[in-house]
């Protein structure tokens, strides 16, 4: 039986051959017959997301935590505030030590059924960074640089992550070339697994040790972030949710209904000297491969090629950003930390509920575009 690891490195070698390198974004979009995926900064769009959460099981004293959009980037994302209603005894907006903002809600025993509804408004737009010439972005502070190079519980930057990163970036000069090599490697060697629950777990070392490089966005983009950090380049996941369809006609890359309860998605950024934070999303390339109609597209399909070229340096503003935090402690909880906060969470007297189980823990997210 062929060893999965052998497949892994065979794929890596193929990905690093000059002939397999991607053409640039311009050439991928150059032919009129080729599909277009070309996010470009333009008009701002305002969105409202309403998160309604109910605890269905007989709860006793109950707590819940609802993620709030706290991320701010002046050139593409601005939170516009949150409002809420609840039958809870206590509701407060809190931020954990890693920067994840959330609404913390406490219900007394007997307050049945516990309900909270949170309305968040944000303004966002497409992003695109011209990687052909460095700009004048200020360097990260020493503190920020250390933060975005550090390991997280599930994203080590030593051991197999470091050795894999070193193999991928061998012979590459400069952070841009190294980061692009890692991006291409992740696209070539991973796969989106439809059976993965939610957005995945993001246990990077386990993925590499087992050679099973399947999962969803929280797995594949965490792998990308870990490999980039291990190369000494600052990187981060941004956890959020899709709020609108893709205007480029990519069904797989948008929320195609006003109900976005299962549209959570994390993206990734790398910090490149002169360019600043650069948007990337290798996980979405694999999503296009698996899910873009008619499905199971070839890696050289035109739609895949266009998305692959664009998603290193740009992304579409049809998505809300919550936070960039790893290893999140829920204030008021005695339970373990979360690898990331992208889903509503709740605890009853019987313990933490399964945020992916709609039978005992019902929540809905609805999105609407507002007049800008």
């Amino acid at each position: 039986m062929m060893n999965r690891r052998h497949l892994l490195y065979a794929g890596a070698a193929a990905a690093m051959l000059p002939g397999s390198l991607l053409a640039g974004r311009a050439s991928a979009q150059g032919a009129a017959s080729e599909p277009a995926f070309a996010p470009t900064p333009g008009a701002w769009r305002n969105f409202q997301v309403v998160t309604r959460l109910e605890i269905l099981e007989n709860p006793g004293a109950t707590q819940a935590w609802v993620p709030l959009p706290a991320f701010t980037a002046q050139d593409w994302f601005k939170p516009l505030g949150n409002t809420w209603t609840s039958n809870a005894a206590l509701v407060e907006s809190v931020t954990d030590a890693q920067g994840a903002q959330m609404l913390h809600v406490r219900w007394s025993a007997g307050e049945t059924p516990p309900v909270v509804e949170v309305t968040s408004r944000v303004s966002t737009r497409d992003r695109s960074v011209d990687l052909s010439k460095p700009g004048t972005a200020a360097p990260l502070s020493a503190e920020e640089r250390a933060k975005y190079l550090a390991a997280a519980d599930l994203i080590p930057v030593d051991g197999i992550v470091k050795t894999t990163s070193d193999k991928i970036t061998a012979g590459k000069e400069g952070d841009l070339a190294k980061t692009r090599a890692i991006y291409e490697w992740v696209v070539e060697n991973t796969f989106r697994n439809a059976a993965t629950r939610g957005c995945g777990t993001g246990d990077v070392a386990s993925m590499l040790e087992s050679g099973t490089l399947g999962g969803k966005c929280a797995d594949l983009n965490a792998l990308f972030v870990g490999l980039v950090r291990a190369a000494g380049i600052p990187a981060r996941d941004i956890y959020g949710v899709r709020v609108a369809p893709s205007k480029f006609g990519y069904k797989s890359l948008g929320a195609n209904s006003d109900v976005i309860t299962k549209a959570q998605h994390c993206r990734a950024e790398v910090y490149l000297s002169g360019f600043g934070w650069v948007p990337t999303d290798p996980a979405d390339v694999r999503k296009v491969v698996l899910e873009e109609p008619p499905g199971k597209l070839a890696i050289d399909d035109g739609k895949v090629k266009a998305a692959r070229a664009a998603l290193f340096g740009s992304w579409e503003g049809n998505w809300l950003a919550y936070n960039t935090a790893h290893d999140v402690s829920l204030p008021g909880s005695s339970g373990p930390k979360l690898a990331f906060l992208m889903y509503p969470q709740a605890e009853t007297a019987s313990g933490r509920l399964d945020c992916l189980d709609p039978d005992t823990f019902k929540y809905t997210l609805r999105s609407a575009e507002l007049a800008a």
Partner: protein
Amino acid sequence: MALLSGAGGAKAVAAQNESRIPLSQSATVVSDPAASPGAASGTGAALLSFSGPAAPSFVLPALDGATVALDAARGRVVLVHVFATWCEPCREELPALSRFALRHADTVTIFAIDVGEVDARVRRFFETLPVSFPVLLDRDRSMMRSWGVSALPTTFVLDAALRPRYRAVGDVAWDEPAADRVIAGLAASPVAVSPEIPAALREPAPAVRPAANAVTGEPPR
């Protein structure tokens, strides 16, 4: 229904960091799969023999509400299997491990330890996949860290003195005779069982850390 409403105003709440048990690198590999006649190979992993000090003890909640201590199994061959329900190789391996547990019920105690998942998710998973061994919950991954586990699934085979004797990283073919031979060999070996030492008097045991990757055979890191 009384409504409470509000807006804006974030308040910073400092999170407390967990204390961590540093990994030790004192254990060493004594053989590779080819040199180990009893080695059991699976679809991606082999049980590799190694030696080291007694494994760090643990006391963990079980899915059925009990509390289970590793020390309680002293005197029997013990198989400590670390997994998660999201891990595809883990899911594939569990039915064969359950059959293996039934075959060796007289000599082997198996602890399957789920890491980092909410109880409700694990409970729901095993409602559709009943197994013949207790499932323990390492909710904060502290056991996983103290044993130096970096990949799932990982399995340790301990002798009757709770010394780790074999380890596999990846899914093992538990239905194959090689796995049975590993257990038979250990069960037949006379092992001096150390008298119980109260935890308060015990030196912290170094983490179990093999010196080679069982999947790739790569050297120690």
